[in-house]
């Protein structure tokens, strides 16, 4: 009798060791919010309330090969979540004689926010006091900038306006 029950124990011990080794896979659902992107409005330097798209604008991400971003009056930029700045080349009149390249740097600090077990963390960005600096100082077509939201937590509205 004791032996029989002992066998039962050994059996269940082995069973539960295997049982323990499989865990339910938690899946991060695709509609969970991710690290947000920076939304930039292109506005008129004389009247910042008016959208003004730049002619033949091409944007290149510095330190990142062959990433070109299409130009509209609103631009969506991916900020580097592993550094506290990201550099972009804004190329006006791309391909023509009067091509004008402005290299600008977005400065921010990173704040990682916990989502859940499966998705882990996402980043939010907090603009520094000098949120945008121009790297090339001569012949700038970008006049100035405005901060519309000082933290980038979601993509619901524009965070920054570029005056040109």
């Amino acid at each position, binding site marked *: 009798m004791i032996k029989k029950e002992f066998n039962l124990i050994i059996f269940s011990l082995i069973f539960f060791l295997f049982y323990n080794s499989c865990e339910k896979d*938690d899946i991060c659902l695709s509609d969970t919010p991710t*690290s947000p992107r920076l939304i930039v409005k292109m506005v008129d330097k004389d009247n910042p309330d008016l959208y003004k798209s730049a002619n033949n604008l091409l944007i290149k991400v510095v330190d990142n090969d062959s*990433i070109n971003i299409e130009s509209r009056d609103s631009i969506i930029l991916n900020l580097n*979540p*592993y550094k506290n700045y990201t550099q972009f080349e804004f190329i006006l009149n791309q391909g023509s004689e009067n091509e004008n390249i402005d290299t600008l740097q977005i400065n921010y600090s990173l704040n990682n926010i916990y989502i859940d*077990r499966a998705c*882990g*963390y996402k980043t939010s960005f907090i603009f520094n006091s000098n949120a945008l600096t121009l790297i090339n100082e001569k012949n700038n077509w970008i006049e100035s900038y405005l901060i519309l939201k000082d933290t980038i937590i979601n993509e619901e509205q524009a965070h920054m306006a570029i005056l040109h």
Partner: protein
Amino acid sequence: MKNKHIWLFYISFLGIHFSNQAQGENKIISNDTIIIKSDSLNKKTYKLRFGFDPIKTVLSQTDDNYNGIEIVGDLSLFENLFLAIELGTEDKTKQSEKINFTTTGSYIKLGADYNMYKNWKGMNNQIYIGFRFSNSIHKQRVNSFYLRNSDFLWGNELITSGTGIGLRENLNASWIEFITGIKVQVLKNIYMGFSVRFNRLLSDKKPLNFDNLYIPGFNKKTDENIFGAGFNYTISYSIPIKFNKSK
């Protein structure tokens, strides 16, 4: 070196209990000389059983990411009703889907077991159900994680510093456990047992900018529900203690 200490810890328990037993016998002898024979019927024998979880001990030796001990005890109040306690401490490093974290803490579980198994004469096995009120005090450390990104423009780097990383102290949790298990007498006074536990979290103090993904004694906590499950194995040693029945 550490392992050696753990084993010494267990062995020291045996030593304490053997010496207790010896003292108990002495008392009984001295009592017998002054008690009239009929009074001995008023004596009640309680059975104290204590032991440890061998699986946790083995895992502590073999698994680099786990360190834990659990000691268990129960005391027979009535023929089939036992007061039961589990005390444990755990240090576990876990890699979840995107986060690597370490949970350190201790727990206490207090409750009762009810034996439903009718033994043949001379046998002392148990199939029981029970419950525990449980409490843990713990801390969580986030070691590293991957960010959730909308695309992989900037690659997928492991983050080991910055916001989110670090220790969160002074956390706690309380839960209730429903247990079913067996205990089998394998040698005289030596029992082997295992139990399956369904846990329901009552409350927990959440760490800042993180969650109690693992709670010592409770096990893995899922995001969407408050239920958990666990099991334990025990090897325990039983000693009878005799008391005079209170009048």
